[in-house]
Each structure stands twice: as C-alpha cells, then as structure tokens.
C-alpha cells in the first residue's frame, strides 16, 4: 500500500515545510488539521483520512476529513459507539484493521453499517495524545483491504503528533488558555466551515467535496484563515468571489 523511495521523500519534505510554514503564522486548528489529513492521504497512499477530537462532554467529534465518505465512516462509529477509531481513542493505542469484514465479531453494529453504506474496507486509527490524555484520533481509510507497513504507521503517528503540537501551540495557548477551550473553538469553526460548504455547494452547484476544495484553495491562495473565509462566505457575498476564482484543482480531491 505504501510508496517507497525518493518520491515519498520529496512529498515528506514538502509536507513538513508546509506544516512548519503553517505553524509560524497565525493559523486555525481546523486549517492545520485539514492540511494534515491531506498530507496523510498523499504520504500513506490512503484513500481518505480524518481527524476526530474530543469535546467538552468527552464525546468525539469529526473535525477534519479529506473526503465526505471519511466523515460517514467516523459518524457511523460515533452512532454505534464502537469501531476502530473509538477504540483507539479509549485505549490511547493504535488500532489496525486490515479488513473490516473480519471484524464483525468485534464491532457488529459498526461493521453492519459499513457493509450497507461504508466506502472503505480497511482502517488504521492513531491516537492524538497529550500528556497522557487522549484528545482524539487520526484515521486512515483504504478502499481495498490490506495492512499498512510499520514504517507507514510510524510516519502516520508522527503526523498525528504534529496535530497535537499544532493544537498546543496555536495562538490561544500562548495567551494562557487551555486545550479544552482550543478544542471548543475548533469545533465551532468546523460548524462555520460546514455552513460555508453548503453556501458554495448550492450557489456553484458543486458537491460538498468540491465546495470544500474551492474554499480551501481560495483561503490558501490568499494566506487567509480558513475559518475566517468560511465566516465571510456565510455572512457576506464572498461566495461570488470564491466561485469566480479559478485555481488549479488540488489532486487529493475528486471533482465529482
């Protein structure tokens, strides 16, 4: 499943340069996590990736995903209250499931849901840990069954750790605030981004994936905060500008 050799090294250095760039400037967590899931998909040859964070009620919430289908996989687990991502969060340990069909005994409700409306066959879940406390999980999804090599899992965990570092060093923490509030803000920003996707999807007759891609590329091309652009799409007429801006599509997103 993995790519080897210099192709990946190039991708890797590009990813770390990109992330380091993000961490220096003013940034919001959702933007960082969105970049991370994008890099994870590229580097680990995954078909999709998603990140879930714990909220103030200690419930998991989906905050970033490379594809709407990854959202669905994570929501199915939250509804069933079982599955690899949920278990990874509870145990604070990686959970690898090369083929979900074989896991029907372990998570019957979730696997049944996957069989009826899931898009992926294998899941690798990596914990986001902070001082011994679980704050979420990063999940890698593949359409075909298979095991990820150890080296890929280690790289995946490194990316998950970058997410944790990013959450810790975001500006609010520098103001002396704590992680609970950070996550709160991130979750609210996620709501704003979803609303903005809806605005763009309807006005531009786009799929949600394509709408998010437009939003993301518009924000990045202007070095603007994703959540701020999203807010303006919802509250002002910025959608017109976003939809009129043509930028080369990023390859990680399909243009259904």
């Amino acid at each position: 499943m993995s790519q080897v050799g210099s192709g990946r090294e190039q991708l890797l250095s590009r990813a770390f340069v990109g992330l380091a760039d993000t961490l220096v400037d003013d940034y919001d967590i959702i933007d960082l996590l969105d970049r991370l899931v994008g890099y994870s998909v590229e580097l680990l040859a995954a078909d999709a990736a998603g990140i879930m964070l714990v909220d103030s009620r200690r419930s998991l919430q989906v905050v970033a995903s490379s594809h709407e289908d990854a959202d669905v996989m994570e929501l199915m687990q939250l509804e069933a209250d079982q599955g690899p991502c949920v278990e990874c969060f509870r145990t604070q340990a990686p959970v690898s499931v090369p083929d979900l069909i074989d896991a029907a005994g372990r998570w019957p409700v979730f696997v049944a849901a996957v069989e009826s409306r899931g898009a992926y066959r294998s899941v690798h879940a990596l914990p986001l840990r902070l001082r011994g406390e679980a704050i979420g999980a990063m999940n890698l999804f593949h359409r075909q069954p298979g095991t990820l090599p150890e080296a890929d899992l280690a790289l995946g965990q490194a990316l998950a750790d970058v997410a944790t570092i990013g959450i810790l060093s975001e500006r609010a923490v520098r103001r002396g605030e704590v992680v609970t509030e950070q996550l709160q803000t991130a979750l609210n920003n996620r709501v704003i981004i979803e609303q903005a996707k809806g605005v763009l999807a309807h006005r531009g007759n786009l799929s949600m994936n394509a709408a998010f891609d437009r939003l993301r590329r518009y924000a990045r091309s202007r070095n603007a905060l994703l959540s701020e652009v999203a807010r303006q799409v919802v509250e002002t007429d910025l959608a017109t500008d976003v939809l009129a801006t043509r930028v080369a599509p990023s390859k990680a997103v399909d243009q259904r």
Partner: protein
Amino acid sequence: MVGSVRVAEPGSVAQAMLALARDVGGNHELAEQICRVCVLGLDVDGAAISLLTASASRETLWASDATAELLEDLQFSLGEGACIEAALTGRPVLVPDLQLSTQTIRWPIFAAAVMEQSDVGALFALPLQWGTINLGVLDMYRTAPGSLNGAQLRDAISAANMAALMFLGVRTDPGDGQWLDHSLHGRAEVHQATGMVLVQLGVSATDALARMRAYAFVEQRLLSDVAHDVVSRRLCFTQDMV
C-alpha cells in the same frame, strides 16, 4: 478497554440543564434558570447572560446578583471587557486573577473599574454560539481568585454549549417547544443544509435553521433527515413553502 467515549457523563451542570423544563417561557426565564444552575454547580459566586447582536445592541437577560449585573453594565458602558471580548472573538475568556495585569491588558479600564467598584477576583466569559450565529455570552464571577479546574472548565463549556442550543431552540421554535439536540453539533449535514437553505431563501443562518425546523415539524420528520434531503438535493426550499 477503559471507559466509554460517552463516558462522560456530562458534568453536573450540564445534567441539571438537561433537566430544565422544556416549557421554560421566554429568553429571560431561560437565562434565569441557566444562571441558577451554573451558580449552584460551578465554583462561582454569580452569573449573568447577555444577548449581543450584530448591531452592537445588547440586553442583559438576567443577572444572579447585583455584582453580576454591575459587571455587565460596566463593560457595556465602557465598551470593553471579558464578555465583549468573548462575543467578538468567539473564544472563552478566562481571567483567574483580575489583579494580574497580564490577564487584563486587553481591557485595562474595565479591569480597574471592576476592582474599584466590586470585590470580584476572577471572571469567566463563555460565548454562546452556533457556527456563525452569536447568541450572547454567559458571564460568571468569583470573589476569590483562582482557575476553574479541568473538569469544572469542561462542565462550564458544556453548559455554555447547551445554553446556546437552548436559546437557538427558542429562537427557531416551530411550536414543538423542543430544545435543539446537543448531538446536532456533530451533524455536518445539518450545518451544510443550513448553508444551502440560507442561499435558497436569502435569509440568515438562524432563519434558515428555523425554516428547516418548521418544515420538519409540519412534516413530522427529524431535522437531520430533512437536512439529508437538502444536501442530497431532493429538497429545495422556496419562499412559498411552510
């Protein structure tokens, strides 16, 4: 396997809020009950809830005592303070010790006035919001300085989230008298549909949500199902609907 993802009994304050009667009258009565629950369940001496709107108008719905009311009045007359910062930034503003100038540097006049006119030692202002919708701020104070601990902070933030959904529930009530379900926060489709409907009708996010709730109520369907139909483009809202 340890615990459960939803282990997490919501804290005592959030529990108490869940138990609030669904037929709480209007905003004032709701604010009063929420403030009472917070003062009882959290390590604070007083609480107030103010609504803030985009037009910079404000209305204090309820304050648990004279000090809580003074804090609201001061910051609205001075135009600065923890509550206003929370409303503007959408972030919680926690000030465990008002005497420390590093914590009050963003609103020095307000901080000086509070110290001069009251015995408040710590302030916690939590925004009540739902995406782009700012409903107001839950303000709490304690005379003794000191932080809320991790569990108390989580409980306070849960309480603020729940309060936001309750006020939004009142504002978008189609007549069923139901609060909005807390789990709605995690439903991306409800937010995406809100964005689509606000374009379809040319209204605000709040009104878009209200129209979807009204439709769900009339059709006797779940809001999440209606949202799913909107996102899958099986349902498009028009002016003459509902």
